């Protein structure tokens, strides 16, 4: 096996996932939240690929491709929403977009 062991990859993946999660929880700008989501997804992808190499099994890599497709779709919807919010001259602030409060 070339390169560092699987633990290193998992460490980087967890780090990316953590950054993304904190971004989603703490940032208020919708665009940044979407961006952070992408980072979370990519952290997960990295873990999948790392395990795939570790186990000599291609399924994980295929799975990562599927996640990318879902991420692309999600970004389309998310950016569409962002454009729609902007057109109505609303703040792109997730804390102010709370009309569904019970």
């Amino acid at each position, binding site marked *: 096996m070339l390169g560092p062991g699987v633990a290193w990859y998992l460490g980087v993946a967890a780090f990316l996932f953590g950054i993304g999660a904190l971004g989603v*929880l703490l940032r208020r700008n919708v665009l940044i939240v979407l961006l952070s989501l992408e980072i979370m997804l990519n952290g997960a992808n990295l873990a999948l690929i790392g395990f795939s190499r570790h186990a000599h099994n291609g399924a994980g890599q295929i799975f990562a491709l599927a996640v990318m497709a879902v991420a692309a779709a999600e970004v389309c919807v998310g950016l569409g929403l962002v454009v729609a919010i902007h057109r109505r001259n609303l703040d792109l602030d997730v*804390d102010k977009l709370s009309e569904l409060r019970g």
Partner: protein
Amino acid sequence: MIAGAWLCLLAPLAGFLLITLLGTRISRVAAAWISTGSVVTAFGGAVWSFAELWADGGERTHLSTAWTWLQAGNFKPGLEVLVDPLSTMMMLVVSGVGALIVLYSVGYMHGDDEERRYFAYMALFVFSMLLLVQGGNLLLLIVGWGLVGLSSYLLIGFWHERPTAVAAAKKAFIMNAFGDATMVLAFFVLIAHSGSLAFGTSFDTATTLSPTAVNLVALGLLGGAAAKSAQIPLHTWLPDAMEGPTPVSALIHAATMVTAGVYLIARTHPIFEQARTVELVAAGAGALTLLVAGFVALVQVDIKRVIAYSTMSQIGYMFLGAGVGAYANGMFHLMTHAFFKALLFLGAGVAIHALGGEQDIRKMRGVGALMPWTKWAFLVGSLALVGIPPFSGFFSKDSIIAAAMTIGWYGWFLWAAALVGAFLTGLYTFRLYFVVFRGEPSPFVREHHHAHHGKEGPWTMMVPVVVLAVLAVIGGWLQFAPIWTPLTSWLEPVARTLPVAEPTSWQEGISSALAVGLGVAGIVVAWLVYGTGRIAVPRVAALQRLFEHKFYFDELYDAIFYKPAVATSLVSHRELEEPVLLAAGPDIGETAFDTGRGVRRLQTGLLRTYVFFLGTGMAVLAIVFLLTK
């Protein structure tokens, strides 16, 4: 003969579906003729199967299975029709008399608002009745049994804008539903013991059942038969059922449906013979009904109600015959009764039609002078009903009375009751005849008759009346016990008369002589009282009240069933609903509101809280997953 039987069964169903589906796209007259045509076709099918069965010298029992209808484990009833002497006889009576009465309806119902619905129901009824008599197992029999109850309900309540008609329809349906329920319970017992409802298997099983079980089965069947045939104690619906149109009364409540109970006893006689006590109870109920109905008929003033009570009384005779074991005699009376009672109803219908719907015999006085055909036809029907030779009732009724003599001391009671009934029959029948048809027409009658252009009725009404009048005369010549008994031999393979119910010649002779003598005595008394007025109508206040209230059966059922039910409802409304349920209602609502207010706070509308809950939930799940692994 199988093809004929299927044709007979399915033609009226096709007529019913055709009228229903075509709706207003066809004229009312077309609907009437479709219905008539389908029932006439059914009669053709019946004649076809009868002719082939006649030529068939063998066992004369043919079962035709279309397919397995239901399947539940070993219980596999087929959709099958049975062609045997008993079912063929019923097919001929039902479709033959049915065809005449539907033809009569073409004239009678002309101009009614909902003729199409009426004729669709009539075809449905004929189909249901044929299914009842042709069904090759007890399950199909009860399907037909339920369907005739349904079509009877629909036709009694045909004039649904009359509250009395709707009430009468409900009453008939509920009392019949009671009988249906007891029959179904009996079938459950049979299925539990034999796993089948086929006639043969069920009857073989009956011989192996414990006395308790077989008595229960027979009682259940008797309950159904008594409800359908309006025998005491389930008889109160039949007089009210006269709210329906007159041809309906003739077809359903005189000629066919109400006699289904007699058919049931004849068909399931192997079961009843294992439960001889129950069979004798049936005979006793018949004897009681024929007396009670005879007395009540003496004081009724509605022409159709008099005939309805007379129907109950005659079915009492049939139950008496079938109950003592003379099944062929019961079936014979069923057939002749179908002829002369349909004739009486249709004759009454002609008069009612001409008088614009009037049914009170006091207002109808003297109709006979203006309507000679109807008068003679009604006279023929009355003579056949009283049992004067050579009219048909003489042959069938007297053989039942004679059969009652043969079964010991209990039979003597039945015999005496039947003879008293013969006198009452003469009295009430000719009271009706003399009051309605003799004498000078009243001004009311003249006025209405002229409004009708002086005609008795259209040919569609008069032809069935004449045909039935002929049948009411010659229908009885089929059998003159004990010399000439083709019908008994015909039914021998299916409904063999019990040897104990075979009277000797002298018993036949003395019964006939007494029955005819008493019938004539009844006519003479009716003549003296109502024909000439030489004797005033005797008045005994207590008896008259008793008869006019129909022996207080309605009041009794009101007190036993209706009033306690209403009282229970009122008490539970006052004690349970108001203090408990209504009081608890607002509390339950408040609690729901409070819960909602609390839970609402979780829905913050903030993305971060949702993500937080999501992440926490996932983390908890992951920990649980790892710990339990």
